[in-house]
């Protein structure tokens, strides 16, 4: 279980990045409040959709949850354990994949997986077996020994997912997983997410595609300008806004806030 309470992340702004006073409500003097007092929780085996416009704070939130960034204040508990107290141990339980697939082009998919397995302290035999099993599951056998730089976007995303799954994590954080993928590649990647859910893993899934939310998510969190503006199920999203389409419901939920901020 992942519990987030009163989470805040403040960045110090470089003078060149400072905008006009009042332009963005999150910019307060020299400080930028990227995440501002967010609370939510994800239960084991649940898929939580993390929604928000570009720059809403989704990536910062995921970076905090993945231990890349430290929160300015607030607490994140992973099965009752504070994320900031022992990040190295927490990282063993978390897998992270971003839309901008970070792969080493000159390594083969197998070498890449082997590298991350070793970094996670896996023994050679167990690692080989794990790579074989993931390759079967993700249909990667046929390109496992090709260099990553020669792979298509869909194949690269599969390697990226396999990399995140190599140490068999309980929690998966996916940041705009299907960005830039064609329909077939996106479908095969989403199938993997569904498999992860069926295996009982906790998934936090950031996306702009509402059909993906409809298809996979048990509940939804909407972040707008660093603040939480909705938490609940997909059906609640529809009933609360009176919209049958999730795109419309999403816009309804964030629009009053946007307009409020502009006035």
């Amino acid at each position, binding site marked *: 279980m992942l519990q987030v309470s009163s989470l805040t992340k403040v960045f110090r702004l470089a003078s060149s990045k400072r905008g006009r006073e009042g332009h963005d409500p999150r910019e307060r003097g020299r400080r930028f409040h990227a995440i501002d007092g967010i609370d939510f929780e994800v239960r084991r085996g649940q898929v939580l959709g993390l929604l928000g416009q570009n720059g809403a704070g989704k990536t910062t939130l995921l970076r905090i949850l993945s231990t890349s960034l430290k929160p300015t204040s607030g607490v994140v508990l992973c099965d009752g354990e504070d994320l900031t107290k022992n990040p190295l141990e927490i990282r063993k339980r978390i897998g992270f994949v971003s839309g901008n697939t970070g792969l080493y082009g*000159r390594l083969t998919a197998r070498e890449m997986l082997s590298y991350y397995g070793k970094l996670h302290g896996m023994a050679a035999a167990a690692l080989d077996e794990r790579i074989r099993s993931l390759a079967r599951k993700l249909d990667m056998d046929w390109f496992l020994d090709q260099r990553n730089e020669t792979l298509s976007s869909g194949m690269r995303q599969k390697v990226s997912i396999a990399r995140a799954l190599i140490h068999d994590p309980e929690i998966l954080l996916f940041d705009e997983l299907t960005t830039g993928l064609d329909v077939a590649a996106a479908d095969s990647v989403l199938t993997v997410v569904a498999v992860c859910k069926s295996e009982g893993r906790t998934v936090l899934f950031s996306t702009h595609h509402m059909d993906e939310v409809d298809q996979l998510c048990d509940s939804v969190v909407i972040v707008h300008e660093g603040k939480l503006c909705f938490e609940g199920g997909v059906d609640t999203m529809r009933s609360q806004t009176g919209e049958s389409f999730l795109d419309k419901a999403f816009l309804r939920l964030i629009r009053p806030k946007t307009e409020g901020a502009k006035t």
Partner: protein
Amino acid sequence: MKAGFQTVFFKEMKDVLRDRKTLLLMIILPIVVVPLLLNLLIGFVIKKEQEAKSEVLEYVVFGDEFAPEFAKTFEGANGFKKVTLGSSDELVVAIREERIDFGLVIPEKTATQLSGQEQASIELHFDNASMGSKVEDRVQGLVEKFNDGLTAARLAKLGVPSGQKQKSLLEPVRLRKQGTGKIREVIGDRIGGMVPYFFIAFCFMGVVYPAIHLGAGEKERGTLETLLLAPIPRHQVVLGKFLAVFCGGIIAVLLNLASLGTWLAIKAGELRGIIGTLIGSIDLLDLMLLALMLIPVAAMFAALLLSISIFARNSAEASTLISPFGIVLIVPAALAMLPGVELNWFWASVPVTNVSLAMKELLKGTMDYTMLLAIFASSTLIAGGLLFFCAKWFNRESVLFRV
């Protein structure tokens, strides 16, 4: 199971060595390009030198009737060809247009000056802007030959017998130079400052690309973010990366050293005495110490450039930030080439310069090994400090996630 930094190191080495640009800079450049360039350069210089010595110089003389004996000296000499020119006013233009190599203008009063046993002045017009020109040397040689004959005749006329008596009259005191420096010291002092400069430059070149690739390159490709999620402390990630960059510098230096050494050994005969003498007098221990001195330099460069590279947003920014350091770091290495800069306790405390001077002393064979130890220790300490800074730097969110 390997420690985290070892896993990172082996992966980074594999990644770096699979890159064509790195292979070119680190391996192909020292093994193939450097000896090839040296061969071409030295061959070109030797060829030009020989050409300048054996070239037939075309000249004109104005007023040869006022010093016919002097003019005859040139007419009879090998490698000189007399030509004619309309008037002396054309002299400068003719030399500039390379129609002639030089011109001599003998004034009218020369005849009376020479017969009156006075000193005469003859003008030599030549292109003194040409560095490789041997005109002045070759003309001076003939003038000296003419002067020797005339002086001997004049002294004989004054009743001074030729031979030793004339020499002692013309040069009452003769300085016989008895240098105490061994030939290795003399040569080492003259060219010993250049050798470390090249090795330090090669070391820098070997470090630059891996530093950019493993620092800013990781940010750019988006792999740094996933690497930071590995359950190993960040200082181990830095250590693994540092070792890979450091190895880049060491490999470049060793290959350059080996390639240059092999080339010199093959070419020593052709280059005649000087280089051969220097190579022959350097023993294996000195060579090993020479390579050893470059280890902390490579470590300093690796830690510094990795810190800069980690700070940069992408490879292009990293290249821009690193370029000025190429000049800043090479200047202290070049200081060893300046006359008067000798290894003492002051210079021993200046990073890079101290190593450069120590390498020069090693080549000269006059190294004070206590000082060598101090330089090695201080350079290692600085490299350690820079590595510590790099590890701290790598822990800062504002550096890693700089936007």
